[in-house]
């Protein structure tokens, strides 16, 4: 028996197929993963993401602390509620985790980190926080529900009072705001508009029921994975880990090299790596029928026998084609071959995202 979120009983009641995910008993799907995927692309779906860890960091030197801990620069956060996506790196540049950090007040930041990495993340953060007198509190008293899709914001706003509804509908992308003990952010992991709602665990089941009553479809980890992959978003453990740095993981845009005098953990190695040819994370579209899967070998035409590897692959329900993220040598030509069960299949390097706001963004012909 694994750990259970405050919504576990709701999932079971709704007929979820429960699987282990990083030690948590989580819903994989509630009947059809593909229908849940389409619900998010076309209307509104909701995910229990309470297994992720919410960590509050506070103290007089918290900003200074985070400017050294994270590869992106929290100095970019100028107004309260603003969110920033970033990696937390080892000194050798390897990725400990990817996370979102919210600017709550001058002395308070909130992080949301992955479930499977929570223990090592907290140990790492606490170790470095000590020197800055920053307090690190894991908010196990909170649950989190992600409501995603073109109609998600309008439907989810019904949870709030009329004046709060007006306010929450004004939230800009990648901003959050507090409503009493709730925190609502316009963020997500699907390529659709929506909210991620952090609420006291004791409110979770009631909120879930009310969202159901709004016609929001529960969606499991299966749909979450196909949606994020279509959106070209990385999954920690698949697309990056402690053995690769963010520049080879499609995450160069999250590393703030400017200002040049900001000394963050991993900087020295990345400064060298950015001048080397190396590898890059790209999108793949399979030209044949079949399904791309992680660890399949990618043969590139021009890189002197170097092979790449699929890091995440799936069947895209929106495109009706198989898509993937793959790490390949940087000079690779667009036409590649992928080894699937000992046979070579043609595939094409494309630029993610594959799908955004319900629309295909790549040429399928």
């Amino acid at each position, binding site marked *: 028996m694994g750990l259970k979120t405050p919504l576990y009983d709701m999932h079971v009641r709704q007929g979820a197929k429960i699987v282990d995910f990083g030690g948590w008993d989580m819903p994989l799907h509630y009947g059809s*993963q593909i229908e849940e995927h389409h619900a998010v692309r076309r209307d509104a779906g909701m995910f229990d993401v309470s297994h992720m860890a919410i960590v509050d960091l506070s103290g007089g030197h918290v900003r200074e602390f985070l400017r050294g801990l994270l590869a992106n620069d929290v100095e970019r956060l100028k107004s309260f509620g603003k969110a920033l996506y970033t990696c937390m790196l080892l000194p050798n540049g390897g990725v400990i985790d990817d996370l979102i950090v919210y600017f709550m007040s001058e002395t308070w930041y909130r992080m949301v980190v992955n479930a499977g990495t929570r223990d090592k993340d907290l140990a790492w953060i606490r170790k470095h926080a000590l020197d800055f007198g920053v307090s690190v509190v894991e908010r196990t008293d909170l649950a989190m529900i992600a409501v995603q899709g073109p109609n998600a914001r309008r439907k989810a706003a019904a949870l709030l009072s009329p004046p709060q509804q007006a306010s929450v509908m004004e939230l800009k992308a990648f901003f959050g705001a507090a409503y009493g003990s709730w925190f609502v952010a316009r963020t997500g992991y699907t390529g659709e508009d929506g909210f991620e709602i952090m609420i006291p665990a004791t409110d979770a089941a009631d909120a879930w029921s009310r969202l159901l009553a709004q016609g929001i479809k529960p969606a499991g980890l299966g749909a979450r994975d196909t949606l994020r992959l279509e959106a070209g978003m990385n999954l920690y453990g698949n697309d990056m880990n402690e053995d690769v740095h963010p520049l080879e993981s499609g995450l160069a845009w999250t590393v703030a090299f400017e200002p040049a005098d900001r000394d963050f953990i991993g900087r020295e190695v990345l400064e060298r790596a950015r001048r080397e040819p190396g590898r890059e994370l790209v999108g793949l579209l399979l030209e044949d029928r079949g399904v791309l899967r992680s660890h399949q070998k990618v043969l590139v035409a021009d890189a002197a026998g170097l092979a790449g590897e699929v890091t995440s692959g799936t069947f895209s329900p929106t495109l009706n084609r198989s898509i993937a993220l793959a790490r390949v040598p940087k000079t690779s030509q667009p036409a590649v071959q992928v080894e699937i069960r000992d046979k070579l299949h043609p595939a094409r390097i494309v630029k993610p995202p594959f799908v955004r706001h319900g629309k295909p963004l790549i040429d399928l012909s």
Partner: protein
Amino acid sequence: MSNNVPRDLQYTKSHEWVRQGQNGAVEIGITDHAQSALGDLVFVEVPDVGRALSAGEACAVVESVKAASDVYAPLAGKVVANNAALAGKPELLNEDPYGAGWLFRLQAGPAAAAPSLMSASAYESFLAEESK
């Protein structure tokens, strides 16, 4: 979990079903339990007509959004037909695993009396045992 087990078919421990026809012709597919465990199917690869299969040989692939799974020949024989409709509509296998979702037909060899096949009730007991 969906667990329909028709009485008139035979079964394997790897969740294939076998429908015995006349004169050694057999039809093969995967069970309702198997399709339900796999989830939404998105790709099916069936063996080419004319291919000779030995019993237990991996000869077809069914892939759902989450995983790929091999299908094994329940008995030896030569492939005489395959279900081409699955290429365009793999979901037939979810909707009708014992009918429109059939995978291929074999002309079984003379020595194809396969003692390892289970009856419907034996397969049900096997499923009950597996889920413990």
